[in-house]
């Protein structure tokens, strides 16, 4: 008989021989078996009985001898393999030291028992302490303190702006004067000299302020952290918390007077937004929330004036969830350089500096770290590619792959479309995590597909959201932050449809990664789109996602 396994593996085939008597006939049953035996012995036995019409009186005999045969041969195989391994060792084919080191490594890196003791980490201790405090009556104090620090920074900033403005005015006047004299008493060179002098003066002033701000933030951060730790210690020490409560209460009253004074005005923009509850999945449905918002992307980061429209609540919410497992993320579209010199990156950096980050490194510090990591990642990648040059079949070369690699070779510190870096913040109003997704000018064109790097980047962002408990994420629906002329209505609709559909697909995929935890996805559209356009988009959403049925309460007659 033929065995049906055609799999060509290294496994050996052995023949099982079974002799039995049927009447006067001596019968021999020979079965070639593939080792190691994968299938169930009872099944094999049943199949043999059926196939060869073996009389039932030897059923049990066949079964015992079959299982004994398989057991015996399997043990022999094990022994052979085991001794081969031992022989390799004695013959010197395998280096003992290398072998034992590999074992040591796997124990040390994976088991607590053998792992190196943990070095205490300030960040995490502080995280624990803060998380505990913010969930205690002290939270109000913490928030007020944070706010007051914010206010003093704001004051500094407005002072700076004022001074810079003054300087600029003065310089403008001076320049006017100079221009007036141009050709009369002064030459072009003189004008240039004045201009560069102005520029230098501006630089000096800006640097002065920058360093001052940096210093103040540094001090604030340190003060804050020390205060938090101390408060926590006091809370732990004291058995009766009344005294502490006093301590908690005293501070806000001192500080709250300041609260209203210096806060910079923040113009309230009418936002358009619409929420949907959707169900995903064919049989088992998971519920998620979607929101379509027309706003500026930085609105999610900027703090509003204390006391105005739930700003404090929002701030408390953000603080409460900072070290929890329901974080908020935001996707920011950036160009291929990791810095904060231009465009939206600069605007974002400005917002991020408006308030001291008491928990994480300042944005500049984080970006520096990212730059290091980018270089490291490139190095890793190129060494890996050199290692396995032949395994090209694994990765399907995409269009323009060569261009990309050239680009990387030109400047390894630049990032490519679809890649993103992550920064963490405790000082933004509604966001903890910012994904800086790199996009190129391609996103402005009308013909991007689901295979576009930017879309793949979105998918990876959602994946990180999954693995790091980011339950709310804000995504620019049109993959741009500002509208321009080529972005016509059909362009917008097409783009929105693509992003909606892709995000739907990714969300369904996510359900298989994390078991369908309910999450919120906010789709952000630029402020400059019309109201009509907004409602067109909000009409499109329920056609793509299955919106859960509204509960209709009808009175029965």
């Amino acid at each position, binding site marked *: 008989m033929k065995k049906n396994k055609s799999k060509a593996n290294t496994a050996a085939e052995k023949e099982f021989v079974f002799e039995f008597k049927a009447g006067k006939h001596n019968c021999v049953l020979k079965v070639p078996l593939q080792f190691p035996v994968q299938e169930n012995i009872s099944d094999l036995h049943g*199949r043999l009985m059926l*196939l060869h019409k073996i009389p039932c009186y030897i059923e049990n005999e066949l079964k015992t001898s079959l299982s004994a045969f398989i057991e015996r041969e399997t043990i022999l195989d094990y022994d052979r393999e085991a001794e081969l391994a031992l022989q390799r060792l004695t013959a010197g084919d395998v280096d003992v030291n290398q072998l034992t080191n590999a074992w040591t490594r796997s124990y040390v*890196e994976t088991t607590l028992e053998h792992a190196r003791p943990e070095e205490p980490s300030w960040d995490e201790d502080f995280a624990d302490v803060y998380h505990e405090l913010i969930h205690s009556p002290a939270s109000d104090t913490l928030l007020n303190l944070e706010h007051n620090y914010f206010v003093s920074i704001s004051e500094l900033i407005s002072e700076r702006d004022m001074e810079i403005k003054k300087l600029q005015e003065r310089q403008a006047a001076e320049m006017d004067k100079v221009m007036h004299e141009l050709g009369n008493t002064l030459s072009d060179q003189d004008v240039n000299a004045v201009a560069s002098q102005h520029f230098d003066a501006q630089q000096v002033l800006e640097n002065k302020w920058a360093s001052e701000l940096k210093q103040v933030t540094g001090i604030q951060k340190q003060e804050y952290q020390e205060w938090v730790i101390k408060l926590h210690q006091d809370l732990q020490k004291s058995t009766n918390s009344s005294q502490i409560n006093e301590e908690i209460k005293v501070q806000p009253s001192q500080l709250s007077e300041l609260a209203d004074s210096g806060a910079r005005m923040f113009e309230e923009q009418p936002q358009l937004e619409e929420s949907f509850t959707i169900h995903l999945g*064919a049989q088992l449905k998971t519920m998620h929330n979607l929101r379509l918002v027309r706003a500026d992307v930085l609105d999610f980061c900027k703090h509003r004036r204390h006391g105005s429209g739930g700003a404090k609540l929002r701030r408390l919410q953000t603080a409460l969830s900072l070290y929890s497992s329901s974080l908020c993320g935001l996707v920011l579209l950036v160009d291929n350089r990791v810095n904060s010199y231009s465009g939206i990156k600069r605007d974002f950096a400005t917002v991020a500096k408006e308030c001291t980050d008491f928990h994480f490194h300042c944005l500049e510090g984080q970006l520096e770290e990212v730059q290091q990591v980018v270089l490291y990642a490139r190095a890793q990648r190129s060494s890996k590619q050199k290692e396995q040059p032949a395994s090209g079949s694994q990765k399907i070369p995409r269009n323009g792959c060569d261009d990309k690699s050239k680009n990387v070779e030109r400047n390894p510190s630049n990032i490519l479309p679809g890649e993103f870096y992550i920064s963490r913040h405790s000082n933004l109003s509604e966001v903890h995590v910012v994904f800086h997704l790199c996009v190129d000018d391609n996103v402005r064109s009308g013909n991007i597909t689901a295979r576009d790097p930017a879309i793949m980047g979105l998918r990876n962002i959602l*994946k990180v959201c999954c693995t790091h408990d980011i339950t709310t994420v804000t995504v620019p629906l049109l993959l741009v932050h500002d509208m321009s002329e080529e972005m016509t209505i059909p362009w917008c609709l097409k783009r929105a449809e693509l992003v909606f559909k892709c995000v739907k697909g990714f969300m369904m995929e996510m359900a298989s990664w994390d078991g369908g935890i309910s999450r919120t996805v906010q789709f952000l559209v630029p402020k400059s789109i019309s109201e009509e356009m907004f409602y067109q988009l909000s009409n499109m959403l329920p056609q793509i996602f299955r919106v859960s049925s509204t509960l209709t309460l009808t009175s029965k007659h």
Partner: protein
Amino acid sequence: MRPLKDAQLGAFTFFASALPHDVCGSNGLPLTPNSIKILGRFQILKTVTHPRLCQYVDISRGKHERLIVVAEHYESSLSHFQKQGKTASPEKVLQIAYEVLEGLEFMNKHGMVHRALSAHNVLMDCKGNVKLAKFGLYHMTDHGADVDFPIGYPSYLAPEVIAQGSFHPSDSSHDEAPLPSGPKTDVWSLGVLLFELCAGRRLLQNIDISERLKFILTLGCMDDIVTVLAEEHGCLDTIKELPENVLELLRKCLTFLPSKRATPAELLGDPVFDGVSCLYTPFQKPVSLFSSSLRCAHLELPEDISDLCKDDDEDYLSERAIDEVYHLWCLAGGDLEKELTNKEIIQSKPPICTLPNFVLEDGESFGQGRDRSFLLDDTTVTLSLCQLRNRLKDVAGEAYYPLLEDEQSSLPQSNSSNELSATVTLPLIIRERDTEYQLIRIILFDRLLKAYPYKKNLVWKEARVDIPPLVRGLAWAGLLGIEGDIQAKYESIDKDTPIPTDRQIEVDIPRCHQYDELLSSPQGHIKFRRVLKAWVVSHPDLVYWQGLDSLCAPFLYLNFNNEALAYACMSAFIPKYLYNFFLKDNSHVIQEYLTVFSQMIAFHDPELSNHLNEIGFIPDLYAIPWFLTMFTHVFPLHKIFHLWDTLLLGNSSFPFCIGVAILQQLRDRLLANGFNECILLFSDLPEIDIERCVRESITLFCWTPKSATYRQHAQPPKAACDNGFGKTATYYSSDYQDMPKTDLSREPLALCDLKAEVSPRISAEDLIDLCELSLAGPAKRTKAGKPKIIAVDIRSVEDFSRGHISGSINIPFSTAFGPDGELLQCPATGVLQNYRGRVIVVISHAIKSAAMFASHLVKVNFPRVCILDGGINKLKPTGLLTVPSPQI
């Protein structure tokens, strides 16, 4: 499963290794997460029951590939023994060795190897008997391939295991996982363990891991490993003093070359155990419910029956099976993650601290430090049963041993019975979470099922109240009437030889209820394939239609470790509810089914029926997957369970009522929408409240005369094959087809004729029964359970006065409707209006006019209209027609 006795429940946790980012399987679908693979492979461990092995109870998946395993646990282990620093007596050593080997041998028979044998995994129960813990770790992790950490402890690793190398996932230089270890590796570990016991100290404790491993490898060049070890640890004298048989045992275990080392089975029969083996009786596997051998064959009652009742400790809970206790523990508020977090086994960092810095386009992330909380800490935490015991402290002892003789009282007569009977009225979802209630129900069902099939009737009766989730698999088997040696039958089916259907099955399985962890695991897929193939092969007249996979899913889920039972249940279910649906050409069966369904819609909800017919939204467009899969294609498993709990109690026409009940839940939206919206609505069926659906379908069912759902292609009546224990058929559960056929029964109808009629026909029999016209004997049912009925005679007044059935009203066809089909105002129609809501049976000479009359009634939204099959002529021979006495 075994009773809990003095054992405790323990839990330990570990992480499955994360998948490489963005790799697809060979079929193009995303890879199965390793945690799901482990979860699937774990299931079989629940069936590995042996007195020397800690019973595995459950596994659950947490966030980020975390797995938590629950198993029988004992606080004391050999490592406690070691800590005391004493040497064990030779007798004790032999006893421990023998018991460990018993456990190992049993595992090996099931194709498993321990690999992680060590002092703290050899537990001791309170009688000092060995219980091996974590014996399934190597099996469930696919020989360690699905986890990052190595399985086994450095000092106990056998030399060949070390030589085969460790596989480190982050190290991509060698992709091959090491070969699986054989049973003999455990014998080495046992040798080390026994040596430690004899020497009274731990081996190789103070040196670094790589030195330790090197030392073990160098033992290969030594002649006498035991002596070398003893010298190395300065305990040569102690070892030398050991009795010869213990030394011999040590030498046999610590044999360097695997080929010379004995297997656990061989060692068990070794002469060194001559003094010990006689104390042990070989373990006998308890006989399962469905088998050819006698379940009571090994039952031995003590001479004095009262010995059985001697137990004076009042701990009845510990007499329950371990899985029951765990189930109840969960219901009583047990939370595995919380228990482990409290003991600081689970330590998680805030996610914001572990974010990566930078992610490439293909999803590889950088800048993320290794998180220490992902390291393995395999300490087992004891789950405290205090909360559960506290919860159950008011449950009387009698409740644990309900008497089954009295068919009247289902719930035990205890103090809490009042409270329980109050619980019965609560919604099912609440009952399923009620600890006391579930305890009582589980005990009752457990006992009933043990007495199956003798107590089949009681199983039916109790199932009507509800079925506890824990025993649902067996309870369903009971309801489906499974009997006999299903295992042997299943084994004799060839499930390996390729058949043409394989391809389709292969395509369908990865798309069937894959949100479920069990069914999406590779083990689940294998089992799916085998059960489906077995069914296809053993039903040569039927074929595989897409949908059979969904139909298989609930049975496979409930009987994951018992494919034979899953197969048997499915094979019993299909002929009962889906007779001939899986014919190669099933169009006539399905067409008839759908036509009867649309008649049922018209019968129960004429307004909806009118609307749907108007927009052309016929059942063919949406209901085929409903019925072909008995709703398993449209609902998630947990809803199917509740739906089928009731479905299995009803007859084959019950699905019609479920279908109508679903439509009624969507009624408002259907009525408000046109064809396109309806198609869209049903392409992805909205959430359905399943409890309401069940409740309403029962009501609908009660209002439906039995013969209204007559189908000529239904399952033909079974031959009377009652075997003594056969259940007495109740009115609702028996099929119309099963009743004896008489002249008054319904006659087959051609499909085109059937399609032409809007309202269903009912048989004269039903009419007689429902109107209580019967001359002989009492009615089969009490009056309360019957639908109210009104017979409408549409013949002319003269014909009516010549003879009609008593209680019927006469509305001559010609007088009833206006030219536009509206109901005319006249005394007779006024009467009809008054009876609105009752079942209206239209009776006439000719079926055609009756059908027309009925369709007019449906048009004006009269519910529950049906026609008498065969008309008045059918009734003439019965002598039931009466002539009204002339009015004076």
